[in-house]
């Protein structure tokens, strides 16, 4: 056993807070385990200490991927300097350069790295902070808030995914299955002690997402896409299209398991971003090319667009009317709806409104989470 001094223990607790702040689910047990490995002397070997903490603190792949970088950022100074020197070093923290994580449709979604001292001082995310970020319009998020928003989105989408699953799963027990009950009774001397129940069929929904990726919609599409990627396994079939001046079928790109790789690839493959919006033309193309395959009375169609049509409004109205007729439910998400004083008076929107089952905003995390209800209730 190694005597671990108080300063180190405090530092280790600081690190636990630091991880917790980044959505790691850590309780007293993990802190206790961390102390134990430190006392066993693993802290003397940086790699061993890092890998041990990684095994204890990480609970899912997303944590696993981020841990090394976090560990380096937090502990490098400890291993470089002596503990006594660390205090003075903290007063003059090095400034890390910003690095981009995902380039999506030409827009860089950077994870900014605020100075370490600031992060250490701010040990917990206040509830107000989270609520503020949830309510902030995606396009108005400050650069300094991006990292927090990313983490918050990841956590909230994960929670929603669990909720979604539970709601989708009907109670396993259906009606009593007489045949299986009798069969189970055979090894109990014919006594019907355990009742067997039939399983209810789990029904998954089919959804088609059509996203506007014209310049002003980049940011909203990015978050909606992330939202959909979390949900993709709960739908029987999920089709994904993007459009601005031309329609692109991006479902084949969703096959990869890595979310970041998917986002990067879509960014690379879709060339029509930031080009103006021809909603009517794109929807007509969707109808003629993919309509027979992806539209039925079992499909939910979700369109994300601000509705600012630069093409023919008549064509748009006809396309939306036809889609509505051929699908189960049509939902239109308009980020502008989240703006104060917004009224749906644009020509495009006025023409499509009568054919919609739901008209929702999707401008911040809160409204995206509310979309869960729309997708479940239909």
């Amino acid at each position, binding site marked *: 056993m190694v005597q671990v001094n108080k300063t180190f223990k405090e530092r280790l607790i600081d690190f636990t807070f630091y991880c917790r702040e980044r959505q790691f689910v850590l309780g007293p047990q993990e802190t206790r385990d961390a102390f134990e490995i430190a006392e066993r002397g693993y802290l003397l070997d940086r790699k061993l200490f890092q890998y041990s903490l990684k095994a204890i603190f990480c609970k899912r792949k997303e944590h*696993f991927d981020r841990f090394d970088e976090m560990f380096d950022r937090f502990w490098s100074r400890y291993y470089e300097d002596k503990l006594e020197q660390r205090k003075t070093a903290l007063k003059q923290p090095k400034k890390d350069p910003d690095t981009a994580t995902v380039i999506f449709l030409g827009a860089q979604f950077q994870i900014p790295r605020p100075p370490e001292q600031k992060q250490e001082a701010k040990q917990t995310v206040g509830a107000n902070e989270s609520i503020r970020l949830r309510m902030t319009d995606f396009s108005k998020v400050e650069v300094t808030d991006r990292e927090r928003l990313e983490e918050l989105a990841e956590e909230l989408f994960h929670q929603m995914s669990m909720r979604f699953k539970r709601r989708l799963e009907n109670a396993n027990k259906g009606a009593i299955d007489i045949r299986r009950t009798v069969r189970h009774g055979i090894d109990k001397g014919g006594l019907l002690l355990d009742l067997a129940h039939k399983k209810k069929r789990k029904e998954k929904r089919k959804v088609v997402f059509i996203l506007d990726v014209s310049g002003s919609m980049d940011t909203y599409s990015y978050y909606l896409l992330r939202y959909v990627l979390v949900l993709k396994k709960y739908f029987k079939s999920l089709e994904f299209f993007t459009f601005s001046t031309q329609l692109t079928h991006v479902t084949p790109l969703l096959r990869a398991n890595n979310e970041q790789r998917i986002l990067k690839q879509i960014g690379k493959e879709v060339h029509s971003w930031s080009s103006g919006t021809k909603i009517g033309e794109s929807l007509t193309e969707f109808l003629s090319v993919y309509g027979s395959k992806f539209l039925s009375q079992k499909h939910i169609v979700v369109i994300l667009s601000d509705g600012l049509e630069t093409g023919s409004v008549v064509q748009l109205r006809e396309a939306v009317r036809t889609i509505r007729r051929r699908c189960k439910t049509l939902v239109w998400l308009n980020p502008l709806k989240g703006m104060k004083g917004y009224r749906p008076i644009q020509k495009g929107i006025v023409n499509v409104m009568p054919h919609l089952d739901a008209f929702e905003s999707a401008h911040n995390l809160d409204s995206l989470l509310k979309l869960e209800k729309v997708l479940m209730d239909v």
Partner: protein
Amino acid sequence: MNKEIDALIKDFYGHDYILSEELATSVFLLKNLEKPLLLEGNPGVGKTVLAKTLAAHLHTHLIRLQCYEGLDVNTTIYEWNYQKQLLHIKLFEQERDKQALGNKIFGMDYVLKRPLLQSISAEKPVVLLIDEIDRADEEFEAYLLELLSDFQISIPELGTIRAVSKPMVVLTSNRTRELSDALRRRCLYHWVDFPSKAKEIDIIAKKLPDIDEQLASQVVTFIHNLRKSSLHKPPGIAESLDWAKTLLLMNAAHITDELVHNTIGSVLKHKDDIEFVRNKKVQEFLVPIP
């Protein structure tokens, strides 16, 4: 690194399993902190083999529980031996002390031990592999919580049965569904990723000592480039080994279009993926990996 971890890596190597330092640390903690280890990763990256190798390394038994939907207490923990109970009742029908008779037939002698109970009843610690936990229902995860945190199982009629020796528990998951936070909290965690090119060549060379170094390198380059493509099911290490074995059987010196066309079935298991590869030139998949 720690001497014990180095020894662990060496011993696993002797059992044909190449451990990275990071994974070795997780296995080391599994042994020392006595906490279950949850391994997640794509199919075919060596999660199950790790548990088997651990059992061989510790010279102990491996008790394996293959999970599937509908798994319940009776098939995983215990079941009453109803025939034996009925027989006992028949034999002692005339017994006056019915209370004693009742107590007798609900004793340990009348319990059929299933894998989880077996693992905590063993005299010497065993390796308990709970394979593909993501295939089981959420209810089953709840059954496991008591075992994973306290190494004990509660049977209503018998009370709590504590572990005679604590098993080394390894859980694997292919991530086809999210596991509950309660289960994750009780485990150490490791994401088993596809290996680096050098490590995969080592694995192939270790398993197939007769293979030509250049062919092994080509196989790994090809497989790594395949993994970068958008496939339904990217090939794992198991598929690399299968393919290398196939090529070795065919006395191939290097990979050609014809060979790929004829043998790609041992690497890819999806029609669209196979067509995708057959429609491309082999050179496209032999681009050196940075």
